[in-house]
């Protein structure tokens, strides 16, 4: 089977990318979705707060996804469900990508695609990856797994809950478990700041009187069959548990919300170069990876805070992939690197091609720590060209700067753009 464009993943990123590509004139495209329905993880996010930026209204996850699914159906974008991409390679000349997929109806087959958009999303960091010692009983779930049980199956995974990690899914689940009749005793966060959005701390913890202990972690899990208790301890500046601060909290459930990891196993198979900070592919202004015709967007590229930004980014990827397929992408010109320095953890994209750049370019990033009364600075070859004051910058919130093509053209011969945090304001 041959396709112009294959989109791997039918979640918010894949949907928005497919819609943008179709609207840009690509008709021979296909979305591959491993789950039984389109919409991805939004289907289990039944809380509201989605779409404020995009639709100026508060939607639930399924409602937000529904808007994109409706649009995709209206545009008659083809998709396959219950379909797993098991390998992604390229032909020996490198032009065509080979997408090997499996599903019940059609078995195992390979699609030859001229372009691919990676939109596989991310997974949650597991207990094992966190090296939490103790027994391995039932009752330890990633927050997303618990969310699936509660919101999709109508089942409770526990009665008395401790949550480790204050990522957004953990905070949302603290509230959900409470509303469904469980007792959430504590949210413990290793870092001295939360990894989630401020609004979620307020609405999901504060409003329900659930305590959040920063600089705390779980140092032991008790219970041989089912969790019976966890031991929580305070950590020092090196994030090591401080002896003598241990506190045993009886509970039957430990939820983990300790970070998300982009699912880039397929990208790895293809040999896409990765950014070790984001665990996502390195991309340029067109969201194209270093493999020609392979684009990335959404949480597989870098973990987002709001789905609105996923959609926005994915639309851009879809548009650029369409331009690539129609031969409308400019010849590559000079590449300007974007460096993340002084508190800026990473940037997406990590480079800009002057020829291909549109009139403006959004550069998204996250900071590595909490900064108050700081400024986000952009410098061209070391010379500061813009400085924007921020009351608070936190790792849980994605930030952005917008670069103008005109400014870059003016800075003739520019080699490097840097984005940094200035703290002395």
């Amino acid at each position, binding site marked *: 089977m041959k396709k112009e464009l294959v989109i791997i993943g039918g979640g918010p990123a894949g949907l928005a990318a497919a819609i943008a590509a179709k609207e840009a004139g690509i008709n021979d495209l296909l979305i591959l979705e*491993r789950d039984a329905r389109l919409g991805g993880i939004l289907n289990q996010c039944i809380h509201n707060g989605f779409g404020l930026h995009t639709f100026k209204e508060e939607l639930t996850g399924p409602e937000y996804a529904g808007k994109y699914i409706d649009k995709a159906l209206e545009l008659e974008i083809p998709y396959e469900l*219950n379909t*797993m991409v*098991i390998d992604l390679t390229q032909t020996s000349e490198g032009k065509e990508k080979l997408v090997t997929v*499996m*599903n*019940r*109806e*059609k*078995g*195992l087959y390979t699609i030859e695609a001229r372009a691919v958009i990676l939109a596989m999303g991310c*997974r*949650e960091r*597991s*207990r*094992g*990856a966190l*090296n939490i*010692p*103790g*027994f*391995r*009983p*039932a*009752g330890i*779930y*990633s927050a*997303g*797994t618990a969310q*699936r*049980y*509660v919101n*999709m*199956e*109508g*089942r*409770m*995974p*526990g*009665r008395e809950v401790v949550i480790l990690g204050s990522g957004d899914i953990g905070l949302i689940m603290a509230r959900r478990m409470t509303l*469904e*009749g*469980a007792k959430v005793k504590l949210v413990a966060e290793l870092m001295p700041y939360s990894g989630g959005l401020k609004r979620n701390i307020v609405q999901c913890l504060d409003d329900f009187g659930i305590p959040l202990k920063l600089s705390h972690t779980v*140092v*032991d*899990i008790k219970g*041989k*069959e*089912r969790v019976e208790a966890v031991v929580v301890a305070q950590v020092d500046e090196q994030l090591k*548990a401080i002896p003598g601060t241990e506190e045993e909290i009886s509970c*039957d459930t430990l939820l983990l919300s300790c970070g998300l990891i982009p699912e880039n*196993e397929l990208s*790895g198979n293809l040999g896409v170069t990765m950014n070790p900070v984001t665990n996502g592919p390195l991309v340029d202004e067109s969201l194209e990876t270093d493999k020609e015709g392979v684009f990335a967007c959404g949480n597989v590229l870098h973990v987002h805070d709001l789905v609105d930004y996923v959609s926005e980014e994915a639309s851009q990827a879809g548009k650029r992939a369409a331009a690539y397929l129609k031969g409308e992408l400019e010849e590559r010109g000079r590449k300007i690197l974007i460096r993340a320095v002084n508190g800026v953890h990473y940037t997406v994209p990590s480079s800009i091609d002057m020829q291909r750049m549109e009139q403006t370019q959004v550069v998204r990033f996250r900071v590595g720590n909490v900064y108050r009364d700081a400024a986000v600075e952009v410098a061209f070859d070391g010379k500061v060209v813009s400085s924007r004051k921020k009351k608070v910058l936190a790792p849980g919130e994605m930030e952005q700067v917008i670069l103008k093509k005109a400014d870059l053209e003016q800075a003739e011969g520019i080699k490097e753009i840097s984005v940094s945090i200035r703290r002395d304001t």
Partner: protein
Amino acid sequence: MIDVIVIGAGVTGCGIARELSRYDWRVMVLEKASDVCEGTSKANSGIVHAGFDAHPGTLKAKLNVEGSEQMEELAKELDFPYKRNGSLVLCFDEKDREKLQKLYEQGLKNGVKELRILEREELKQLEPNISDNTVAALYAPTGAIVCPFGLTIALAENAAANGVEFRLNTEVESIERTESGYRLTTNQGVLESKVVINAAGVCADRFHNMVSGNQIRIIPRKGEYCLMDKKVGDYVNRTIFQLPTVYGKGVLVTPTVHGNLLVGPTAVDVEDKEAVNTTGEGIADVLKRAALSVNALPAKQVITSFAGLRAHAIFENGESDFIIGEVQDAPGFFDAAGIESPGLSCAPSLGKYLVEQVLAYLPAEKKPDFIASRKGIPNMALATGEQRQQFIRENPLYANVVCRCELVTEGEIMDAIHRPLGATTLDGVKRRTRAGMGRCQAGFCSPKTVEILARELGKDMSEITKNEKGSEFLTGFDKDNL
């Protein structure tokens, strides 16, 4: 009246049961857990040792070398994952060369084939990532890796196919001698048997001491491990041991037969025979020691840690060996006790050795219809494109991926449930198919697997357990407690 009862369905008990099933005895295996392979057999290094470690003349040495030689054939016969990858014992100090030489000579005495001592340059070519501090190593090309679950389950399934009855969730509470044999009182009723074989792992002393005046003691020796992502599964190709150093007996760094990287174990004697918890110190210790063997150990790639308990037998003279054979003051009661490392390696040989002794006590005829081979569950992850097509043609459920990290399909999970001695728990499915063993550690697939288990077993999802009773995943419906 049963002819032979085996207590314990670990690799030792199942290996013995399979050998017993060649004869026309009525054989029953009693296991207190909900599945086979639930004790030490599920948490170990998965190594088939070449056989140079044990002191010449010990049972460990004899059965290890025999087991190592027979494992490849057994793997073909019973279709479980096995790979002869070779092993290296690294020496980091010129002063320790003598110890390396002694180990080499000990291996020769034990009958280990193809042993060689390699120098640094050659080693670096074989294994570029081994420590720069390595000066020489003992190379055993016959060392191998095996799937400990695959091996144990294969032995059990084949024994069952040959008529052995497995009674799971059956805990022996007491054993009394009778005129014709032994009476075993269990939580599931009373059983009478002419012969009893004690393969109860860390609990073997308990059963031995119920029938014998010569008490034995089995110390649970905890070993903690870290398992790393398949991304770094080829960090080394051979199993890398260390010569004992001032830090004590070193830990190993090895690829697993499934392509992960495994480091461990620690060795700490504990009291509690169920203390399979990991500890902060243990994990830190494993990573620290493993980092001596290889440059830049990829410690960030850990996907899970676990601990197992070795059944360590202590003799009065301080020596240690397996305790295998008829108990002197208890005719018809046979021990297979103190089976710590290299117990897994001995799975093919230990049963044969013991069953010969049982035959001397209770004669039997070989069954003419013994089924020697067994076919495992199709493995979509390892299958070639053509094999995959074939499996899918037979059953389209082999195309429905449930565990994305390890590429396990609904077809494989259904097989695991519906085989003889099939899986009834999430861990049972995991050990038979690898669903949930990958990098997300069952985050995505466990709700689906729970659903399939419930559907296939005719149960409600709330009844599905991780392993034993009490390990149910779900506590009720939303809003039950409001």
